[in-house]
């Protein structure tokens, strides 16, 4: 076990973790503000990837245009879901919300098969980020470095938005007391729709960024990542962005080190951690005790 090996395992873990964070951020934001555990978030990720792929292959394989326009298309889907479906279950019990959002997962998986076909689609590499850079004599993919940089930037952006802007203050107000915010003139339904669309956009961006990272698109591709994102959200404390970021870092590094050094247990490690956190601190690292 030499330095080179450890550095590369760390880097692989960081890129995995940042990737999970990108998906978990939207999930956490939606839960934190709307109180809805959105199972269909993985579908937004999948749709983001497919829309990004379609746009970029129409526009001369320009990944950046795909990343710009693809997730925007998914926002329309997010709007429809919030405005015409989710809005009616806010006051119901959690199982009803899960049922509704899970129905959307099945719906979107089939929709993707109808529109894009059931086979997997190989994705093009990104010009400029396609190669790799030597780190301590071993190549590390440039695109993974890019993901490692994007993760903290998204975290910083979200923190600034919520803590430092007027919109952020309204969001915080509405999430801590819906009725009071409404009483002082905040249009809560519109705000919820906006937050849901923004969360959708974050999930879809995760999907768009996954296109060159994973290397292929398959129907149902959102199901694996949504489980990781849920684990991360639970460990960090449901609704806490700070917690989700930290949780994603830990899970990413843990799975990377686990695969490399304790391969027999790599599948259990994340769940063992989740179980331990739930026992020790049921509300997660940064969750508020209820």
């Amino acid at each position, binding site marked *: 076990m030499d330095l080179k*090996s450890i550095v*590369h*395992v760390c880097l*692989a*873990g960081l*890129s*995995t973790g940042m*990737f999970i964070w990108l998906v978990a951020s939207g999930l956490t934001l939606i839960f934190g503000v709307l109180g809805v555990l959105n199972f269909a978030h993985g579908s937004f990720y999948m749709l983001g990837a497919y829309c990004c792929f379609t746009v970029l292959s129409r526009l001369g394989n320009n990944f950046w245009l795909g990343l710009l326009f693809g997730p925007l298309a998914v926002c329309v889907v997010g709007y429809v879901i919030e405005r015409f479906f989710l809005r009616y279950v806010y006051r119901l019990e959690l199982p009803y919300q899960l049922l509704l959002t899970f129905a959307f997962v099945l719906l979107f*998986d089939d929709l993707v*098969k109808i529109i894009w*076909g*059931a*086979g*997997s*689609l*190989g994705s093009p*590499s990104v010009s400029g980020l*396609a*190669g*790799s850079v030597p780190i301590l004599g*071993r*190549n*590390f*993919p440039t*695109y*993974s470095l890019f993901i490692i940089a994007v993760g903290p930037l998204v975290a910083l952006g979200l923190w600034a938005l919520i803590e430092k802007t007027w919109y952020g203050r309204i969001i915080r107000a509405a999430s801590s007391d819906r009725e009071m915010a409404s009483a002082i003139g905040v249009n809560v339904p519109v705000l919820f729709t906006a937050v849901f669309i923004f969360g959708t956009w974050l999930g879809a961006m995760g999907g768009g960024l996954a296109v060159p990272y*994973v*290397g*292929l698109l*398959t*129907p*149902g*591709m959102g*199901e*694996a*990542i949504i489980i990781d994102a849920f684990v991360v959200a639970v460990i960090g404390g449901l609704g806490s962005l700070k917690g989700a970021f930290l949780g994603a870092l830990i899970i990413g590094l843990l*799975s*990377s*080190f686990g*695969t*490399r050094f304790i*391969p027999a247990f*790599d*599948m259990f490690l994340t769940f063992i951690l989740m179980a331990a956190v739930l026992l020790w601190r049921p509300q997660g690292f940064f969750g508020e005790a209820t």
Partner: protein
Amino acid sequence: MSKKGFTRRKFIKTGLMTAGAAALGTGVLKPLGLWAATPKIKGPIKVGYQCVLSGTLAGYGEFHKMGVTMAMEEINAAGGIAGNKLDIEYRDSTLKADEAIKNARYFADSWEADFLGGIDSSGQALALAPVMAELDRVLMVTHAATEKLTEQQVFKNGIKQIFRISMPTYQDGNAAAFVAKDLPAKTWATVSPKYEYGYTCWAMFKDTLSKLKPDVSFIADSWAPFGTTDFRSHINTIMDAAPEGFYSVEWAGELIAFIKQANQAGMFDKIKHVMLPVGAAMDVLEGVGMEMPDNIWISGRYFFMYPNDARNNGWVANFHKRWNHYPAYVSETGYSAMFAFKKAVETAGSKDTKAVVQALEGMTLASPAGDRVFRKEDHQAMYEVPWGLTVSNPKYPFKVMGKQIVIPAKECFNRPPFEGPNTKPPF
């Protein structure tokens, strides 16, 4: 009130007429047409086919369906099976064992299928074996590869209802070792699926290669759980071990992701001898496209450019015309499975399980992949698929096999009784 009465009368009248017509119909029709030739078989011949139609591997199911549907169209256009229409129902196997069993029970008990086909996962195939004995229907496996199915369930436990038309793990483990013995690599490592199929292939490859070339060593293995999309830490394990040869039975989308990520990490520049037993699958070739490195050893259960003869080339052309795709291996095995049923039923003159099993045992089937012989002892179809080196070909937008090596099935398939001396290659 009068209206209701009328309706009832009409209803009874219609019923009587239908019953009469039916009785008359069979009476009149029975001695006519093709039924007369095979009076024992009352059609249609029903095949219940299950394959994975949902989730990340749904593309495999679609390719199964293309081959099977094309066979059904051809068979029915040419007068069916012994004059009876071939009827097929598809169900999603979901890759879960309990779902496969549920489907099999539905097919046999509710839908009254004569035969069953399909099955992608080894776990499903093994779980289904005792159920097939109980349902007493022939199951033609077209994808699941574990040798335990034919060696243990069919040969040892005597479940005669199971046949396999597709390549077993012998191609992935034994045949790969025959190719590897002539390569200069002395140290080997693997990243393979963390379940039965991955373990069994790597074990077989190690075992056979050690016998063929005693000075090789196997220095690293990393096991990726089903559904892995991020192979970076597995690639790290391999790069740390720095083997001369690399072997992986990752397959489908996971293999596509693996190849792309290994490419990014420069793994193929460091390791010169790479063997991917399922790398010649169409979804992988098309999915990786021109990013597939040259000079990688690939194989599969069937490869559309082999054998290069009129029968196969004609079939591939028809397939491409019908579906606008090159056939995946499951398309060929699904297609040929229907023709195996046809030949067996027509030879037996019956669709009864016992008679069909007898007809299938030792039967030679002419198929796009070449002539297949169903070995009597273990019901495994003997045929050949080449191993080949990846190369560009201007005719295709993906890499194909250039140099090809064919290891005869006789040489690389384990032999009954599967235990004891001279049952495993080399012979």
